[in-house]
């Protein structure tokens, strides 16, 4: 039941009422009381005057904001002279190791001041030493395009995605630019590590190019930047995080509209609205567009022109809807749109921002800000780092984890967003590795997870990190607010039956 206490007028409707009724109701609300929240002074004056005459206008809070545009994607592209034939992945690993080696060296030296650091090449049997390099895990279950192309190059259907690729015979290898050794360790240790991680390993050389693990060193939490903006932050200011809108999914139109109305301030008491005006920014973390599960077929059926066209048209509908939702939202709040695996952009990380041409209406508002995935920005002095979830989802299939939260926390400790890229997670072949975490974020969020989870970590050098696993909105109807000042988080669930979103301020 939705109550609007402000004017003592009750509009009620039941859950099973049709959508049209809801819209009618909402439009009635809109007609009856226009709560116009605006932080954009460019709107027509007459409207503002009219509003001012009758209603109190709430200004949305504004905080300093910088989007780190070039953090993940080089812009502008002047790179016309790419030598295609040199595109390979070795450069990614090389740059990763180059960045993290000095850090690992430090970590080792902190603990053992006198120990030999050895290049793999010079390793001899019975050497006790520390080596720094990249892990590689050989897994039989790992997808293998050669197997797919089989013996006689018969194209087999791609094997179904599995939840875990961990197998009995998994083997760990360790590599630097000079060579590779096989690592000998308990299965438990093998299962706790990932291909692509940079670590330092203390251990002993064995015969036959093997190395026995005694201790593994990780890079540890990176240093955290401090910004003056944070000191200027007086009141509680919030950033709203949401992921997995799945527009076009026939099941969740209602909640989506509630979300739009809530953020725009069209729902709730004046107290609620006051609270909502403290939300400075909305971040949409991937999978805004619904994508149908593709049926596994061994071949692409031949499609006629009409079939292709109708398919295209069908695909265009949710994007148009997203455009209209964005243009509605952008009227009142700045939005960062991070693309996810289902969204219409390239698929390998880093994903390019959603293209302007897809959003003819919303892009006209500067509040609409399509961003890369992964995403990094500074909001009110807080460093935000986040992804649409691919990195964690992929890594979780190749190691045994306690929880996704645990894994997410570990990535910070590894100083790497996506160790499994490029091995099992598709990424661009660039000459540097953008996924190394050189600055510790204040807020680290992962989109499109099964459930909402959060955790506050304090690092040894006074780092404070709020980790947020964002649930899919289409399944949980939940958004998450992060308090920039305290780094506290509040989930808000839009529940059709017992709605009303509980504003944190009214409850606390």
């Amino acid at each position, binding site marked *: 039941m939705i109550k609007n206490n402000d004017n003592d007028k009750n509009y009620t409707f039941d859950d099973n009422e049709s959508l049209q009724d809801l819209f009618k109701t909402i439009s009635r609300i809109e007609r009856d009381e226009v709560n116009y929240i605006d932080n954009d002074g460019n709107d027509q004056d007459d409207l503002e005057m009219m509003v001012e005459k009758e209603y109190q206008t709430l200004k949305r809070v504004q905080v300093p904001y910088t989007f780190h545009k070039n953090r993940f994607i080089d812009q502008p592209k002047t790179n016309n002279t790419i030598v295609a034939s040199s595109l390979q992945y070795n450069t990614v690993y090389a740059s990763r190791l180059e960045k993290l080696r000095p850090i690992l060296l430090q970590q080792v030296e902190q603990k053992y001041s006198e120990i030999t650091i050895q290049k793999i090449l010079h390793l001899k049997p019975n050497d006790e030493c520390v080596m720094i390099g990249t892990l590689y895990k050989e897994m039989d279950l790992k997808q293998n395009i*050669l197997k797919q*192309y089989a013996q006689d190059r018969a194209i087999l259907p791609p094997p179904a995605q599995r939840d875990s690729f961990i197998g009995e015979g998994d083997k760990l290898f360790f590599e630097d630019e000079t060579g590779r050794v096989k690592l000998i360790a308990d299965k438990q240790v093998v299962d706790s590590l990932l291909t692509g991680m940079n670590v330092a390993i203390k251990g002993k050389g064995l015969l036959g190019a093997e190395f026995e693990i005694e201790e593994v060193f990780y890079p540890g939490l990176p240093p955290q930047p401090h910004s003056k903006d944070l000191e200027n932050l007086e009141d509680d200011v919030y950033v709203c995080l949401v992921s997995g809108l799945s527009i076009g999914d026939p099941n969740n139109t209602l909640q989506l509209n509630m979300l739009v109305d809530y953020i725009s301030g069209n729902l709730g008491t004046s107290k609620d609205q006051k609270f909502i005006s403290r939300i400075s920014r909305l971040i949409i973390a991937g999978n805004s567009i619904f994508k149908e599960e593709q049926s596994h077929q061994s071949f692409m059926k031949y499609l006629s022109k009409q079939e292709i066209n109708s398919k295209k048209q069908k695909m265009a509908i949710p994007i148009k809807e997203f455009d209209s939702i964005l243009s509605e939202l952008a009227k009142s709040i700045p939005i960062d749109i991070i693309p996810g695996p289902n969204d219409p952009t390239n698929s390998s990380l880093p994903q390019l921002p959603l293209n302007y041409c897809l959003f003819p209406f919303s892009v006209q508002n500067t509040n609409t800000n399509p961003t890369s995935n992964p995403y990094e920005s500074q909001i009110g002095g807080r460093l935000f780092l986040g992804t649409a979830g691919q990195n964690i989802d992929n890594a979780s299939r190749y190691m045994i984890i306690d929880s996704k939260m645990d894994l997410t926390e570990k990535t910070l400790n590894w100083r790497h967003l996506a160790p499994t890229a490029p091995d099992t997670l598709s990424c661009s072949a660039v000459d540097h590795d953008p996924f190394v975490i050189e600055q510790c974020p204040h807020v680290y969020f992962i989109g499109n997870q099964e459930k909402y989870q959060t955790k506050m970590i304090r690092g040894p050098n006074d780092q404070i990190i709020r980790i947020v696993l964002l649930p899919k909105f289409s399944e949980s109807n939940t958004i998450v607010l992060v308090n920039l000042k305290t780094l506290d988080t509040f989930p808000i669930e839009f529940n059709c039956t017992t709605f009303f979103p509980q504003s944190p301020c009214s409850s606390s």
Partner: protein
Amino acid sequence: MYKKGLQLKPSGSGTAKAAPTPTSSYKSGGGGYDDEDDEDFDDEDEEEDFDEEEEDDEVDQDEYDDDTGDAMDTGADDNSSKQIFLWSRKPVPNLNPRSNSLIFQQLEVDYAELKEPVEGMPGPKAGSRPIVRLFGVTKEGNSVLCKVHGFLPYFFIACPPNFDVTHCKSFKEALNEMMMSKMPSQEVTDIVVSIDIFQKKSIMGYNPDPLTPFIMITLILPKYVTKCRDILENGHKYFFEIPGQPVRQYQTYESNIPFALRFLIDKTITGCSWVELPATTYKLSTTPVSTCQIEVETSLDTLIAHSPDSGEQWSALAPFRILSFDIECAGRKGFFPEAEKDPVIQIANIVKNQGEQEPFIRNIFTLKGCSSIVGAHVIPHDKEVDMLKAWRNFVIQVDPDLIIGYNIVNFDLPYLIGRARALKINDFARLSRIKSTISKVKSTHFSSSNLGTRESKEVSMPGRTQFDLIQAIQRDHKLSSYSLNNVSAHFLKEQKEDVHFSIISDLQNGDDDDRRRLAVYCLKDALLPVKLLDKLMLLFNYTEMARVTGVPLSYLLGRGEGVKVLSQLYRKAMKEDFLIPTYKVSTKGPKYKGAIVIEPTTGFYDVPIATLDFTSLYPSIMMAHNLCYSTLIPAEEAKKLQPTDYTLTPSGDYFALPRLKKGLLPRILEELLSARKKAKDDLKNETDPFKKAVLDGRQLALKISANSVYGFTGARVGKLPCIEISRSVTSFGREMLDTTKRIVESNYNIANGYKHDAVIIYGDTDSVMIKFGVSTVAEAMELGRHASKEVTKHFIRPINLDFEKVYYPYLLMAKKKYAGLFWTKPDTFDKMDVKGLENVRRDTCPLVRNVVSVILRKLLIEKDIKMAEEYTKSIISDLLQNRLDISLLVITKALSKTEYKGRVVHNELAQKMRARDPSTAPNLGDRVPYVVIQGLKGAPIYEKAEDPLYVLEHNILLDTQYYLDKQLKAPLLRIFKPCLPNPEAIFNGEHTRTIAQATLSTNNKGFFGALEKKKVCMSCPNTLTDEESTVCKNCRHREPDLYQTCLSNVTALEDKFSQTWTQCQRCTGSLHQPVLCSNRDCPIFYMRTKVQFDLVEAKKTLDRFNVEW
């Protein structure tokens, strides 16, 4: 004085296909041997080369000893003594000839000439004499050279009338005088040692008479045999006559068998068997001539041969040392490396003891420094000369029994020897176990239909058996390519990194790490043959084959099939006092009718089809009808006999019944088949994997041997062709097939109370396919079993018609072209069986094989004709729109000659490529991959063939119509014809209308490359203004659409890029090094190259949408 003994024969791989299994190549009527193979048999019949240059043993020996010492010292670095200790064999346990017997497994047998007698050993008092050398290994792993004294070459002629013992002396003198005058020599006083008379019988023709006298002529040395035979065969040419006899030509017997094999036969020693020298019968050599740890002298008479059947210990394998090696050489740009000019830069070695899991030596000799490699010992050298010397010392030190590798016989070994000669390292070629023998390279040409013309080489290396994996695999397996890449991908499921030889020089000239990369690659090439040897159980299979057929291991790869049967025939004949005549080879012979085929009733059978097979058809016919040289009765002789004494074969030949005389061939076959049955039974009960491998190798060898007997009799240029036998065999086969058809169709019908009329829908050589009309597999099996028993009753044992399998469903397209699901038990099918279709042929592009196999799967397993049709249409549409992976369209042909008659596609292309970049162009013997590109209308195909890489790099459009019409259409029509009413429809229709058009790409530096490019609207031909980057203002509304299309292209490419390149990193085994591999046999090679280019292009297009606002 030692001489090269056995000559390795070059015919090798050519005869691989000649292994006459009953299902192959009877059609030619040549008795299982195709005409092309005739040359091989020619080669085989070549006489041993007795005119080898002679070398002075004593002198060489001294030199050798000094050299070894020096070289060892110079090649030594700090830990070399330790290294050498590791390399060497275990020391010999105390061996006292008086009290210990010496037992070893012999691997290699040859002979040599010895100038002086050894005290206490039999043989002439003075002068040269032959000794047979057995090289082997003891159970403890010590190498042995056993020199057997007292065996002399001999042969027979029929005794002319009125010749008796009293004439022997004068005959001997006359013959000796003739021989001495023709081949004067200081080494020997008498060439003819003795003339004796024995009671024998010729194997040719049924002969009920008692044994008759034959003259045995014993000579002093094997090299005199040819001449002596010639004198007796052509007495008039030499004006030679046996005293008291008129001048005439004598038929010689057993005069063309290799001397060492003759020895094995006479002593009933089989290949790879164990030999025992009892205590006191042998003595240690006082002046060893070999590098073997144990070198002994023994007498012919006291040597004991243990048959592999006589106990478990005698069927075991000794711990042979196996050395696998691979070399890299730095060729000049544009040329294939030549030993005279281009240095050897690396030699990788893997040494393993037979029976052990892991190799115990992995090392690599490198020229110039090389970073170390974990798990392998890097031995760098500054000078090539030092490296080669060190490697030779390594070989001597390791003392391998078996040298394996990939293409070592034709490349690595000759190259090393040639290189050493160019560098004037005199002692390098002393690689054999005989200190004085310098390994020599001989070139031979051979042709075969299988492999084309090839220059083949052979390297003499007494005491060490060379086992080239490429030869073994070419013999035993039909593959689309025999490159090590392809072979290891096929058998080991390992793709291997392939460094093109044009990069090798660059890597060599780089730094230590670059050379290390090369070394890792080289080591892998040395390791793969070892893995292949294990995986394919080659050592087990080949030693068993040697034991079954009685020939030494080296004969198996070096010689044809014929010698194997011959060895068995001699062994059997000897026991019965039969003599085998030596025939002059003639390439002409009457053709005879091959096997029969019951015309197929084509169609798609959705009912179970029972298949009955004659087990071991040809061997069983020979046994049942007693077909043999010794039972053949000439027609006029037959008239004199009772009809109950002989069989008249359908081809009109007469053979005596076993009652009169049991043939040798049937008895050989019986023994082979019953031994096989025993091996198979033992195999079932055996649990130890090693013994299992031995038994399986054994039963396989027995089967192959049994089948090759028929081929032996039919080989027109073989050692002992007998057209009467081979044509009788095939005629019986034809008759039996007809009988079977008659019996089945007349018994299993409605008239006899069955529910349906049985129909034979197809029959070929040894199998018949019966449609009983029943609807379940179980019923068909029941009837099949019943019918096989019924029909078998009509034939003489051991002919046996066996029910083997049911095909259901069954797609019968034409003669020898069918496919079906294969059922041996009623509940599930075993596999899909496809015969004679494009997916097993190799001269089509992979697309055809692919499509055919997918369609068959859909038709037979899923039984969904509609789906198969849909799939075919989608593939055709993908093809026409150029959406298929180019590797699917690559056709490969081997460049087997330098000059072709007329213009041949792959030769033309090879020339084109040579003009472009000689360094990467294919060379003689390489396989040339090509694709067909669009060209002028009506242009011949050879103009339209292009290098796939070039096509990728230049974005050239393929002639998809060619692939559709010339590659896909025929096989697809053949499959769909029995299934669809109008199969042609698949090739017409909407899906064939969209066809890829040539587009200008930035990569295309052709004619248009010079023009300035203007930005054009992506949706219409309008030029764009400076502000517009994607579409013109009229097409604005289409922009999102175009963007989406462009995106889906990018994402698909990104996926592929990531999958292929990460896979390449995994194969290469390195994340930090760039992938260098250029393995064109890898299924993703072209794909990953293409995706590199395509992705950059696609991203550029995508970037046009990303405008800054």
